[in-house]
C-alpha cells in the first residue's frame, strides 16, 4: 500500500508468511497495511501469540488502527500496548533504538528499556489513565550500544483508546534531539569562552566593519575610554584617540582593505586616569567563503609602560655613551698628568694602574646608581676597602649623615678620595703603629647655601726628615684636592700637613634634597 512520504518507499510484500497473515481477519476489522519497510515485515511476521496481545488476527480494531498509523509514519513512533506496554514501532524508531532493535519489538517496555524503567512506568501510569505527556529535550541515559550515553529527546505521549473507550495503550512520538542539543551546548560554550577571553584579557577587543566603523567594543574598551556603548560605535571610537594620532588611524584603515592587515600605534585616552596612554592596535580580517573581507576582529594593547621603558633605555644608552667617551678623555688626561710627575717606568705603571682601578670602581657605582643612589659613605668605604690596609677596623673611624651625591660630582670626588687613601696607606696613618684615620662629615647651612663639610684627619704620623716626603704627599693627591675639587665641584678645600697630623677639609655646595635621613 503506497503511501506518500512513508520511508523507505513502500515495497511489495516479499515474505509469503507476511502476506498470508496480512490477509487474515478475525473480527471483520481491517488488517495491517502491506509494505511499510522492515518493521512492516517484522510486525506482520512476529509471533504475537507469545505475547499478551495474541495473534494479529485477534487484535482489536483500535490496535490495528494504531499500528497501521505508526507503521506508515516517517516520524519515530512506538506504541506501548496493554498494561505491560508491549512495544510495536516503526522503521524510524528502530533507527533511534540502535542496538536494542530488533529484540525490542514485542517486548515489555520495562524490560526493553530497563535503564529508564521508572520513567516509562510513569508514562504508562499517566497514559493508561487517559493523560498525555510532553517533554522537550528530555535527557535520559540509554544503553543502546552496550554503554551508557546521554540522549536528549522530544517525547510526546498520548493514550490510545480501545473499542470501549478505555485507554489501552500509549503512543509515543520519539524525536531525538541529541545532536542539536550538543551543538547548541558547544555553541554556548564557545560563546562563553569568547566572552571570557574578550572580557578577561587585558586587551581591548572590538569588531569593525570593512571600513573601520566599530560594530562592537568589549567592556574593557568601555571601561578604559569611558565611552558608553553607543559612543564607541561607528566612528565614535576616534573620539578616544589622541587628536595627533587620528590621521595615523585613518591612514591605517585606508590601507587595511588592500593589505588585509591592520597594525598601528597610537595614544588612547584613559578616562579614569585622565591621560593618554600608548596602544598598539592590530586586527585580523574576517573573510567569507569567497575570501572577501566581511569585518575585522581587532585588539588594542596597552604598550605605554613598554614605550616608557624604551625611552628610558634610550636616554640611558645616550648617557652611557657620553660617560664612556668622557671617561676615555679623563683616562688620557690622567695618564699624561701622571707621566708628567713620575716619568716613564715602574712608578708610572703603579700609580696609573691604581688610578685606573679607582676609576673602574666609581664606574661600577655609577652604573648601579639608578637602583642604588651613591652615598658619601659608600664612596669612602669603597676606596678604603680597596686599600686592604692593615688593622683598618681599629684605626679607621667613619661617621656622618646619609648624603647622596650627585652623579656629576661622584667621579672627581672618588679620585680625590682615592689619592687621600693611597697616601694614607703609603705615607700616612697606616704606616705607624699609633696612626689613626677619621673621616667625618656633616651638612651645614651657611650664607652661600647648604654645604657638605668633610674632614679627613690622620693622626699619629711620623714624618721622616727630608723633602722627599713632602713632594710625595703633596703630589697628585694634593693637586686634586686643591685644584680639581674647587674647579669641578666648586669646593673650598684645605690641605694641612704637620709633623704628626694631616688635616684635609672639603667643603662643597650641597643643595636641598640631596640628604635623606641620618645615620648614628
Amino acid at each position: 500500500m503506497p503511501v506518500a512520504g512513508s520511508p523507505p518507499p513502500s515495497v511489495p510484500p516479499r515474505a509469503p508468511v507476511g502476506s498470508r497473515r496480512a490477509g487474515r481477519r478475525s473480527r471483520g476489522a481491517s488488517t495491517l497495511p502491506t509494505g511499510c519497510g522492515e518493521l512492516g515485515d517484522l510486525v506482520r511476521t512476529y509471533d504475537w501469540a507469545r505475547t499478551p496481545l495474541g495473534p494479529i488476527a485477534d487484535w482489536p480494531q483500535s490496535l490495528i488502527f494504531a499500528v497501521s498509523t505508526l507503521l506508515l509514519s516517517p516520524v519515530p513512533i512506538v506504541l506501548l500496548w496493554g498494561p505491560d506496554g508491549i512495544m510495536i514501532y516503526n522503521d524510524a524508531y528502530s533507527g533511534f533504538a540502535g542496538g536494542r532493535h530488533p529484540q525490542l519489538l514485542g517486548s515489555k517496555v520495562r524490560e526493553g528499556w530497563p535503564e529508564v524503567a521508572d520513567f516509562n512506568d510513569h508514562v504508562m501510569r499517566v497514559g493508561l489513565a487517559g493523560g498525555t505527556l510532553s517533554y522537550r529535550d528530555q535527557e535520559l541515559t540509554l544503553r543502546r550500544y552496550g554503554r551508557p550515553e546521554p540522549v536528549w529527546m522530544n517525547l510526546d505521549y498520548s493514550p490510545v483508546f480501545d473499542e470501549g473507550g478505555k485507554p489501552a495503550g500509549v503512543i509515543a512520538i520519539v524525536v531525538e534531539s541529541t545532536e542539536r542539543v550538543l551543538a547548541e551546548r558547544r555553541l554556548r560554550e564557545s560563546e562563553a569562552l569568547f566572552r571570557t577571553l574578550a572580557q578577561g584579557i587585558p586587551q581591548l577587543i572590538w569588531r569593525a566593519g570593512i571600513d573601520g566603523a566599530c560594530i562592537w567594543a568589549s567592556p574593557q574598551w568601555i571601561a578604559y575610554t569611558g565611552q558608553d556603548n553607543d559612543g564607541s560605535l561607528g566612528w565614535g571610537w576616534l573620539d578616544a584617540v589622541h587628536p595627533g594620532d587620528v590621521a595615523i588611524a585613518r591612514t591605517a584603515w585606508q590601507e587595511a582593505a588592500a593589505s588585509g592587515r591592520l597594525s598601528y600605534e597610537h595614544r588612547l585616552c584613559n578616562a579614569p586616569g585622565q591621560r593618554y596612554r600608548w596602544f598598539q592596535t592590530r586586527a585580523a580580517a574576517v573573510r567569507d567563503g569567497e575570501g572577501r573581507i566581511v569585518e575585522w576582529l581587532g585588539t588594542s594593547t596597552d604598550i605605554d609602560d613598554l614605550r616608557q621603558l624604551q625611552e628610558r633605555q634610550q636616554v640611558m644608552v645616550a648617557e652611557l655613551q657620553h660617560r664612556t667617551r668622557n671617561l676615555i678623555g679623563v683616562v688620557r688626561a690622567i695618564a699624561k698628568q701622571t707621566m708628567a710627575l713620575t716619568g716613564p717606568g715602574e712608578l708610572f705603571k703603579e700609580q696609573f694602574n691604581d688610578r685606573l682601578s679607582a676609576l673602574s670602581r666609581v664606574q661600577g657605582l655609577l652604573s648601579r646608581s639608578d637602583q642604588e643612589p651613591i652615598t658619601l659613605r659608600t664612596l669612602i668605604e669603597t676606596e678604603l676597602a680597596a686599600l686592604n690596609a692593615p688593622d683598618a677596623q681599629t684605626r679607621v673611624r667613619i661617621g656622618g649623615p646619609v648624603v647622596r651625591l650627585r652623579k656629576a660630582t661622584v667621579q672627581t670626588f672618588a679620585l680625590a678620595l682615592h689619592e687621600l687613601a693611597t697616601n694614607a696607606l703609603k705615607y700616612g696613618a697606616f704606616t705607624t703603629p699609633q696612626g689613626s684615620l677619621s673621616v667625618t662629615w656633616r651638612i651645614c647651612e651657611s650664607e652661600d647655601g647648604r654645604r657638605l663639610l668633610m674632614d679627613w684627619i690622620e693622626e699619629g704620623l711620623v714624618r721622616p726628615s727630608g723633602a722627599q716626603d713632602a713632594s710625595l704627599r703633596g703630589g697628585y693627591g694634593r693637586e686634586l684636592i686643591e685644584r680639581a675639587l674647587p674647579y669641578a665641584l666648586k669646593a673650598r678645600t684645605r690641605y694641612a700637613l704637620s709633623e704628626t697630623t694631616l688635616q684635609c677639609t672639603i667643603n662643597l655646595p650641597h643643595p636641598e634634597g640631596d640628604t635623606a635621613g641620618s645615620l648614628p
Partner: protein
Amino acid sequence: MSSDAAALTGKRVLLVEDDYFIAIDLKAWFEEGGAEVLGPVPSVEEALALIAGTDAIDAAVLDINLQDELVYPVADALHARGVPFLFATGYDPAVVPPPHRAVALCQKPIDPQVVARTLFG
C-alpha cells in the same frame, strides 16, 4: 710642533669644560701650541662672565653637558659676537637641538689637532 698647532700661536681660545682632567689637558695642549687660554671654566655662569669681561676672543671649545646644565646660552653669546666655536662632547650629534646643528662637533675624546684645524684651518 705640527703645522696645525702652529696656527694656534697667539690665538685667544676660550675653553668651557666641566671635567677638571680634560680641561687642564686641553689647556696644556693649547698653551703648548702658543695659544692663550681663556678659562677653562666649568659652568655657563662663569663662561658668560668671562665672555662679557673679555674684549678679544678668537675661538672657543665648548663641552655641551656641564654637570647639570647645557652650554647653549654660551653658544648663543659667542654666536652674537661672531666668535667661531665648536662643541666637544660625548653625546651623539643627534642630541644637539636644531638651532645649533650647524656648529662643528668633535666627539670625545677629542683630538686637539682636529680641534685646531676645525677652528683655524
